[in-house]
């Protein structure tokens, strides 16, 4: 198992433990519908409560295991080797930049701008154009010439946007956002 995953396991274990406690508390304090004479074994909070307990147990196992493995690793590996492992586990910077840019574009398009006044096909074409232009650079070695990229994106983006809009509006009778 990688060193990064080990420390992530400890943090993850703690997060699951807290989340499980919150779910268990939420289930315990949930209405038991006593006025409807609901049997205590069939209350709405039963299954979420059991799931909360499950999160806590598995989170605790993850946490303890992560602690043990980290302690074992610390005692076996010299500091220099641990540092080398951490560097080897570090994510590729270019890949992270590409991912964050892609995620930001997707969330801006689908989460922030869609359905807030901009016509669907224009917004979709703009998103596709931006994605194709901004991410092609990092995707290709050697990079596609800028003019070729621009022409390709300028043709493809509106074509796909109009095709999707027409398909959903005319064929599937969906009122577009």
């Amino acid at each position: 198992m990688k060193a990064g995953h080990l420390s992530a396991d400890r943090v993850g274990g703690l997060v699951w433990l807290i989340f499980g406690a919150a779910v268990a508390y939420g289930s315990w304090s949930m209405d038991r519908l006593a006025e409807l004479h609901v049997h205590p074994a069939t209350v709405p909070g039963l299954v979420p409560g059991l799931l909360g307990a499950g999160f806590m147990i598995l989170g605790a196992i993850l946490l303890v295991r992560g602690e043990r493995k980290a302690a074992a690793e610390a005692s076996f590996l010299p500091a220099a080797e641990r540092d080398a492992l951490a560097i080897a586990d570090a994510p590729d910077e270019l890949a992270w930049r590409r991912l964050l840019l892609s995620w930001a574009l997707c969330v801006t398009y689908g989460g922030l701008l869609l359905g807030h006044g901009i016509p669907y096909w224009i917004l979709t074409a703009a998103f596709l154009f931006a994605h194709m232009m901004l991410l092609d650079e990092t995707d290709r070695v050697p990079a596609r010439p800028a003019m070729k990229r621009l022409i390709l994106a300028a043709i493809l983006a509106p074509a796909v946007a109009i095709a999707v809009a027409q398909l959903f509006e005319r064929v599937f009778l969906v009122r577009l956002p």
Partner: protein
Amino acid sequence: MMEGLVLFANGVAGYLNPTSLGLAFGATLLGIVAGCMPGLSATLVITLLTTLTLKMQPTQAILVLVCAYNGAIYGGSRTAILLNIPGTAANAAACLDGHALARQGQAGRAMGISTTGSVLGTLFGLICLATFTPLLAEIALSFGAFEFFWLALLGVVMSGNVVAADPIKGWLAGLLGLFVACIGQEGMYAYERFSFGNPDLAGGFQLIPVLVGAFGFSEVLMVMSEKSARAKIMEFGSALPRIMDVLRYWRTIIRSGVIGVWVGILPGVGEDMAAWSSYATARRLSKEPDKYGKGSIEGLMAAETGDNASVPGGIIPALALAIPGSAPCAVLLAAMIIHGVQPGPMLMVENAQFVYDVVAMVLFSTLGILFFGLFFIRPLIKLTQIPRSIMMPVIFVLCVIGSYALSSRLFDVYTMLGFGTLVFIGRKFGYPAAPFVLGIVLGDILDKNLRRGLTLTDGDVLPFFTRPISAILAALVLWTFVTNVPALNAILVRGWTALLDRIFGRTRKSA
């Protein structure tokens, strides 16, 4: 038996019209194309297609989904053989010998073997689907709330155990799925759980936007976060299968078919495990185990037969028990419910024709695989050259509009974005998506049946452990859990050893 054959003939006849044939072959081709593209999984394809087929007739919509599913599992072998990149997870085993054969200049032969294995595997699975679904449904008619509770739990536990490298993380993902299914109005008293007064949350999360997020958006992010691998077209000869390859390895084909179907039936396990299990068994029993990994025809045949046999195998419990055999089957199950078909033990009683319609759908997809697999190779390889910076945003646009189209509300788009991001982060840290999705699909079954059972017994939990089938299922769940937690496993082993010592120690002493 005769009734089944008549229903199957009706099913085939019902699809012998230009529209249905066009849909079946078109969807199979689409599935093969998507399967060819690394990054596009079978689950993603059928999730997106579910949103595109909402307005279709139920039988035609399910036809499209089944054909695309089967096609995608087959399609991934192309890139596995030519580029050493499995198109879908199910084709990873095919990389080992398929690519080795391609490097030896036998790419065409490898593709022929892959096509033969996939077709024969699907046909074997098809026979099992037609035979075992009615039998399983009949057995399941005697199931009560107790058995369905354990079945749902077993699905999540087994999926978490098999799919994830770390079972603890697989189970946590499954539990999260079960919890997400609890949000909103519950099924017994219409009480709103964890909705915090939000009217959108009160209705619960719709399955399709969550699935599109978990398998669509997260997959887009996954592909964008990976280093790009440029495809190279290689020279290959004829992809026509050789009859000797089939005759020589007939035992391997049948054995891999059986393994594929069995792994498919196991709740939540999936095609990749079917391929690996078939491959490993074939290697163990082979007369030429040293050839494996270096271009073994038998190895490639075993892997490809196993993964495609698990496709109909996974549909068996989905139809008979409403418990999906794999992640794509979970989407298929959701699609059936959306289209008004209610899978489960009563399906054979209320709508037996539908079961045999599905058998006919698998048959058409197999014919499609055979046709496109033999005569449509070069255009498929060209399609794998489309750069991800063009492909991925187009897929995301479909994810957005597909989530929205279901109920025309933006909340579903936000759901897709939220769960997509969550699942992506989880996958990066080793939490698989399949148990999470299975948890969402099975959450309602688990919740309702646990509380129904407790209502029937007036709060007594004993019948959950004393009814014969319940007891077996409970033991399976407990066994899976205990054997995968080292601390509990150690206690179990110590206890077992102490017990044996006590019994045999005394026997030895008395002797």
